[in-house]
C-alpha cells in the first residue's frame, strides 16, 4: 500500500503518513493502544470497569446508594495511606510500618483526649508523632543504607510494641457527653447527601479528605520540582545524583509524608469508631503495597501515579463489597485480591511492552 502512494509535489511524504494514520482504522486502533499503554491507570481502569459491570449485573443491591457509598467510604481511610505508600514506592522505597503508625496515631489521639487535651491539639499531637515516626524511618534508611523493606519492618514491630504498651492489653474507648465537632469534620456522617435515597447511603466526610489527599499528592508529584525529583530518585538514583538532586532529602520527605498520612488516617478512623485496640492496622502494609501495584505504581520505583494508587484501593473496596453482596465467603476475598493483583500487574507489563 505504501508503495502505491503517489508522491505529488504539493503533498509531502510526512503529510501522507499522517493522513493515513488518521484515516486507517488499524492505525487509529494502534494509536489508541499506544495511548492506553502510555497511561499508568489503563489496566486498573479497565479492570475497575469490568468488575463494576460484573457486580452491577450479578450482585443484588449493588447499584444502590448504600453499596456504592460503602465502596467509597471504606476505600477512603486506607486510600489516604496508599497515597503516602505509593509516593514512597515511586521514590524507590517501601514503608511497611504504616499499619503500626496508624494504630499509634489512634492511641496518641485517644490518650490525649482522655487527658483532656483539646481535640484539635490532640489531633496535631498525633500527626506530629506519626511524622516523627516517618522521619525516623527515613533517617534510618538514608543514613544506614539498609533496605527500607527491612528497616520499616523493624520499626513497624517497634511501633506496634509501643502501641501494645499504650493499649495495656485491652480495648479503650472515648465516650464524652458531647462528641467533639472535630470528629464530624474528620469522619462525620454526611446526612444531607445520604438521605437523598431510601435506604440512606453511607457517605462520610472521610471521603472528602481522601479526595483532597489524592489531589494534593498528585499535584505534588506531577506539578512540582519535588515530584520530578521523586521520579528521578526512584527511576535511577545515579542519574538523579549526577543531576544534583539531594536524594537523602527527597527520601526523607517522602518517608515523613508516608508517616503523616498514616497518622491522618489514624485520627480519621478513631473519629468514627471512638474505640481503640492494639490490633488496628496489623497486616495492613502488604494490602497498601498491593493496592499501589494494582494501581500501576511500579514496584521497582520511578513510575506511577497517585490517581492510579487511589483507584487500586477503590478496586479492593469494590471487590469486598461485591463479594459480600453476592454472599461469597470472605475467605475467598483474599484469593480474589491475589488473582486481581496478578492480572493487573500482567496487564501493566503487557501494556508497557507495547509502549
Amino acid at each position: 500500500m505504501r508503495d502505491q502512494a503517489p508522491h505529488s509535489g504539493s503533498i509531502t511524504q510526512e503529510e501522507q503518513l499522517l493522513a493515513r494514520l488518521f484515516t486507517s482504522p488499524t492505525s487509529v486502533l494502534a494509536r489508541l493502544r499506544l495511548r492506553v499503554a502510555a497511561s499508568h491507570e489503563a489496566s486498573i481502569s479497565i479492570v475497575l470497569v469490568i468488575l463494576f459491570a460484573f457486580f452491577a449485573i450479578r450482585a443484588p443491591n449493588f447499584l444502590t446508594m448504600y453499596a456504592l457509598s460503602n465502596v467509597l467510604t471504606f476505600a477512603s481511610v486506607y486510600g489516604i495511606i496508599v497515597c503516602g505508600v505509593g509516593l514512597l514506592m515511586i521514590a524507590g522505597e517501601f514503608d511497611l510500618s504504616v499499619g503500626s503508625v496508624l494504630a499509634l496515631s489512634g492511641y496518641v489521639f485517644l490518650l490525649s483526649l482522655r487527658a483532656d487535651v483539646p481535640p484539635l491539639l490532640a489531633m496535631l499531637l498525633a500527626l506530629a508523632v506519626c511524622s516523627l515516626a516517618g522521619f525516623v524511618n527515613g533517617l534510618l534508611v538514608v543514613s544506614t543504607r539498609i533496605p527500607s523493606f527491612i528497616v520499616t519492618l523493624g520499626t513497624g514491630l517497634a511501633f506496634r510494641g509501643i502501641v501494645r504498651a499504650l493499649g495495656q492489653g485491652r480495648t479503650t474507648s472515648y465516650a464524652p457527653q458531647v462528641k467533639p465537632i472535630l470528629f464530624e469534620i474528620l469522619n462525620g456522617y454526611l446526612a444531607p447527601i445520604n438521605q437523598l435515597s431510601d435506604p440512606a447511603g453511607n457517605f462520610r466526610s472521610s471521603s472528602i479528605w481522601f479526595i483532597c489527599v489524592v489531589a494534593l499528592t498528585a499535584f505534588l508529584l506531577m506539578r512540582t520540582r519535588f515530584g520530578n525529583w521523586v521520579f528521578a530518585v526512584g527511576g535511577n538514583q545515579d542519574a538523579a545524583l549526577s543531576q544534583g538532586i539531594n536524594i537523602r532529602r527527597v527520601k526523607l520527605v517522602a518517608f515523613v509524608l508516608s508517616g503523616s498520612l498514616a497518622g491522618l488516617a489514624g485520627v480519621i478512623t478513631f473519629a468514627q469508631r471512638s474505640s481503640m485496640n492494639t490490633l488496628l492496622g496489623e497486616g495492613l502494609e502488604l494490602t497498601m503495597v498491593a493496592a499501589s501495584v494494582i494501581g500501576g505504581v511500579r514496584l521497582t520505583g520511578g513510575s506511577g501515579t497517585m490517581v492510579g494508587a487511589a483507584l487500586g484501593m477503590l478496586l479492593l473496596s469494590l471487590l469486598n463489597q461485591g463479594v459480600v453482596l453476592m454472599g461469597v465467603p470472605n475467605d475467598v476475598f483474599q484469593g480474589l485480591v491475589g488473582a486481581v493483583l496478578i492480572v493487573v500487574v500482567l496487564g501493566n507489563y503487557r501494556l508497557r511492552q507495547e509502549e
Partner: protein
Amino acid sequence: MNRNLSRVLVLLAVAFSMILPAACAAPAPAPAAPPQVVQQTVVVPQTVAVPVAQTVAVPVPQTVVVQATAAPAAQRKPAKIYLVAHGACSWDAFWCVVEQGNKDAARDLGVDLTIISPPKFDPELTASDIDKALAAKPDGLGVTVTDGAMYQEPMMRAIKSGIPVIAYNSADWRPADKRIPYLTYIGQDEYAGGATAAKRMVALGKGHRGVCVNQDVGHTGLDARCQGFIDTLTKSGLKAQVLAIGNDAAQATKTLGDFYTANRDVDMWLTLGPNGANPFYAFMKNAGLKTGDVIHATFDLSPEISARIKDGTTLLAIDQQPYVQGYMVVQWLSWIVRYSIYPPLDVTATGPGVIDKANVDMVLSLAGKYR
C-alpha cells in the same frame, strides 16, 4: 539486581499472602437440602446440675424417635439473614462449632444465610463488614459484638432502619443505658466464666501467680474473662496479669515460652479458647512441663482440649455451648422475620458451664463439631 530481586520477592509475598489464606480456608457450605418429611432422631436433654457460676443444665443424652414434618419451603416467608462474626472456622477451631450450628439451622429452617467474617481478628474490619452486610438489605442481622463502642454506629443504623438485630457469642458489655439495643444476646456471661475458672484454680490451694492468655486483645468479651479471672485471684491475695499472644500458633507458642522464661513463678494459666490452649500445650512440651507442674484452665472445647482434660493436664474448660449460639441466632432471626416471635429476655444464656474430668466423656465424641 539485588534491589530488583528483593522487590520481586515483595510482590510474590504480597500475592501469596492474599492467596494462601483462601487456599487454606474451610470449604464452602453444602447446599441446603430440600425440606421434606423426615424420620428424625432427637436428643432430649435431661438436666443435671453441675458446679458453675450460673447453674447451667448439662444434657445427659436419651434417644427417642419422633416424626418431624418440615414445612415446604414454598409456604415459608423468605428469610435472608446475614451474620457478621469476628471469627471464622478457617483460622479458629472454636468457630467451626458455631458455624456448624449456623448451617444446621439454615438448612433445617430453609434460611438464605450469609456469614461474613474477617480473615483474622480485626474489629475495625468487622465493624465495616456490618455496613457491607446492610447494603444487602437483609431481613435479619446477627453480630458478635466484640466492641460495643466500635460497632455502635453501624448497628444503630440497622436497628433504626427496622432490621431485627441479635448479638451472639459476644455482647456489648457497657452499662444497660449505653449498650446497643439489640433484641437479645445469645451467649455466656464472660466475667462470670473467668471468675469461675479462677475459683476452681484457687480451690486447689497450689497456685501462686496467674496469667490470662488473651489471643484476641481488642475483644471486650475476652477482656471481661480476664478481668473476672484477675479480680478473683486478687481477692484471694494472688497476683495475676494479662498476656497478649495473637492467633498465630507458632508465634503464640514462642510468646508463651518467652513469658515463662521471664516469669518462672507463674503457675496458674488461663487460656481463652483453642487458639490459646493449643499453643499452650506446645509451650508445655517445649518447656518440659508435665501434668501437675502448672494449673491450666481454659475457655471452650476442641478435640485437643477435651483430650487434655481427660489426661489431667487441663483442670477444666468453661463451656459456652457454641453450637447452641450458632443455631439459636439463625433460629430466632427466622422466627422474628416469619412469625414475629421475639426473644423475651435481654440475655439468652448458653453458659458458662464447666467441663472437667468428671463429665468430659460426655463431650469427647462430639468435640469439634457440636461441642
